[in-house]
């Protein structure tokens, strides 16, 4: 008698779980297990509850006046070669072409096609999957380097040429930082000033 009750109650529990937890209508619900193992279901994901800004009506990214990206001679547009090559998404070390590009920038965590778009090589891709042009490459760098991106937008990071109260030209990140090897190499300094005792009368 007890066994049948236990079996029935287990069956009932199983059905209840199936009805309440698995259907597709629970798309927006988040499930957590608290410390005692109890299941908690909430309507809104925690990220939405914690966010303080609006993502639905976000204004589009501002465009900046930048000169064209500093490509190597003849390398762009990439689709000249890549249009009739089958895309190979397998992560590997390149041996035939582009082997001179050695990635020295988070090379353990990613490879070429994490930034370059697989199907249209004339474009770059963001982490969200959005495809952007090379003229907007600052958005790609800004994904990880957000503080530099914010400073660059205002004019505090990086070089600006032109007029302080008029048209300025913003340089792309890639104009100063090689995206595959961004660390600045040391420069030879220009000559020091002449010492006063070395000035001939």
């Amino acid at each position: 008698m007890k066994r049948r009750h236990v079996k029935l109650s287990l069956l009932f529990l199983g059905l209840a779980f199936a009805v309440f937890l698995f259907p597709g209508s629970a798309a927006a619900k988040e499930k957590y297990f608290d410390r005692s193992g109890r299941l908690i279901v909430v309507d809104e994901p925690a990220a939405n509850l914690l966010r303080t800004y609006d993502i639905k009506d976000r204004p589009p990214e501002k465009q900046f006046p930048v000169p064209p990206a500093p490509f190597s001679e003849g390398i762009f547009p990439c689709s000249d070669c890549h249009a009739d090559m089958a895309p190979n998404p397998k992560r590997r070390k390149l041996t035939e072409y582009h082997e001179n590009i050695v990635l020295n920038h988070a090379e353990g965590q990613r490879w070429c096609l994490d930034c370059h778009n697989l199907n249209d090589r004339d474009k770059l891709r963001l982490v969200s999957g959005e495809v952007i042009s090379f003229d907007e490459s600052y958005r790609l760098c800004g994904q990880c380097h957000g503080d530099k991106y914010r400073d660059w937008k205002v004019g505090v990071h990086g070089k600006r040429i032109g007029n302080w109260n008029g048209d300025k030209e913003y340089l792309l990140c890639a104009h100063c930082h090689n995206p595959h090897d961004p660390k600045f190499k040391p420069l030879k300094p220009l000559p020091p000033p002449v010492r006063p005792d070395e000035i001939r009368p």
Partner: protein
Amino acid sequence: MSEKTSCCKKGFRASRRTALKGIAAGVGMLALPPSNASASIWETFFQKNFRELSKEELLATLKRLEKEYSKEFGKEVKVKATPHIEGVTFGYGLDLSRCIGCRRCVYGCVAENNQSRDPQIHWIRVQQLDKEKGVDLAHAEQYYNPDLVPEEGHFYMPVQCQQCRQPPCVKVCPVQATWPERDGIVVVDYNWCIGCRYCMAACPYGARHFNWKKPGLPAEELNPDTHYLGNRPRYVGVVEKCTFCIQRTREVPGRYPACEEACPVGARKFGNLLDPDSEMRYLIENKRVFIFKEDLNTQPKFFYFYAT
């Protein structure tokens, strides 16, 4: 003493007092330009302080200077006297976390502002300091010359005229040849400066430089676009200093100073402190800013900051 009484036989009779007066007057006449000198030398001699010139006198002065310089250098030189722009106070920002001490700004300034090449004058001086000791000027090195910069463990601080709001150099000038303009730039009237160098002693930043000799400026390196109070070729015996490229920044639209455009790492920022949208306002409101020798209360418009 033997009596020399033979003076009055042939020559004229003059008392000692009269003789001394005559000699003094004669020596005084030597100070004026000779009568056969060109008109421009007479005009230069009697030119008033820049601030007292009327509009016509100013135009005539500029024309005279253009003629003199064009003749001296053999190319067309323009001297303008662009006034300040209303509602503008210039500020300069220098990113100490980015400067690598390459001195491109020093030589960019020299090319733009017609400094003497021999004897050498640099308006910007880059100090190499120890990261561990911070801004310790007793151990600063300005004659560093390694193969590559930046050197390990050092940071670099370029120093130029800080365009102070309470400039000690202006306070001590005995002839008022230097004054702060409405847009904040402290300027020197090279035709009024007497070369006493009090301002050089007063400046705590060592930002003023003196022309001990006639400036050695080759004609092919001259920048012909000049400003009266800025980068026009100087004379022997006058003091000069950074003017925030007054000939570039006062144009409409104003251009960036030469040092900012020469910097390869973008460590220099320039703008209008009164404009709430400018990069200068953003950086003094949001970054860690430090004033050089703040304890002297010169209130400079040159802000050293750390972007990181």
